[in-house]
């Protein structure tokens, strides 16, 4: 079997062949780890899949990795996270916690050193949806 034939989806990484063989970690896996680590930070409403109609789309927990872009090498990894934060939080603080948490999670689960965690705050989530001014008389 060829090293690239494991069907790991978009970008399986070719591990260096050492004595026992290289270890490949699909970027999808790292994406899920990163997404989970990011969303468990308090103040993060969720991952964002992009912007639709002027509003940042909020992804559910099933496709967290859609809001993550990952580059995984043999020893290092870099991630870009697209997130939506909750209203009222201090964004720099939350982003910093996300960076630390994601770095720690990826490093402990994959052994790759995380060289970069970029956090893209795509939108803000309000506790109850902003509505157009409805009729004043109901």
């Amino acid at each position: 079997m060829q090293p690239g034939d494991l069907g790991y989806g978009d970008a399986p990484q070719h591990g260096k062949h050492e004595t026992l063989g290289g270890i490949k970690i699909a970027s999808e896996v790292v994406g899920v780890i990163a997404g989970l680590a990011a969303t468990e930070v308090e103040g993060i409403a969720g991952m964002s899949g992009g912007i639709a109609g002027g509003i940042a789309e909020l992804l559910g927990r099933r496709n967290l990795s859609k809001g993550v872009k990952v580059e995984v090498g043999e020893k290092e990894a870099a991630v870009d996270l697209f997130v939506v934060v909750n209203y009222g939080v201090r964004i720099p603080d939350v982003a910093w916690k996300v960076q630390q948490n994601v770095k720690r999670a990826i490093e402990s689960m994959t052994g790759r050193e995380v060289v970069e965690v970029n956090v893209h705050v795509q939108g803000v989530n309000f506790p109850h949806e902003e509505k157009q001014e409805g009729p004043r008389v109901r």
Partner: protein
Amino acid sequence: MRAYDRVVVFVSALLLLGTGAVFLAMAFGPNPTRLFTDLFLTGPFQSLRPATIGVAAAAALAGVYLFWLSVRGRGRRKPIIRGTSLGEVRISSLAVESLVRRAAREVHGIQDVDTLVDTSGDNLEIFVSVVVSPDLSIPEVAEQIQTKLSRYIGDTVGVDVSRVSVNVRNVGHEQKPARVV
């Protein structure tokens, strides 16, 4: 629009006007191809040649600037970028705008808010256009918006707010308690 943008637009408009006039004159003049040379390079305005060159250079510069403006046009859509030791934090201007809208709406007497943020500089510049309730002192409300936004946005986004421009677009209807339930 900033002051110097306005100056450039003004100058460009003058130049366009002038160019148009010259072209018209050339088109209807007795000897269209030679008119410009006759007038500006060898003719009565010969002594003004440096000025002619100056105007031409200004026109070219204004053209370049306008071109740059039109290309850059999306500059305010740039995210706010802050570096940390672990990477970058980018806050989209969309996110900042929704924060601004929400925060401004919390000011008493504000009925509707539209907003734009300019993230192109080091600091944040906020423009809000609001509809206020009647019977309120507009300067006071505007000042409350400015204080609230510069403090709140500066704090949540972590970037200094250099200016908050408030445009009171309209005075809304009085918000009476509902007469019917």
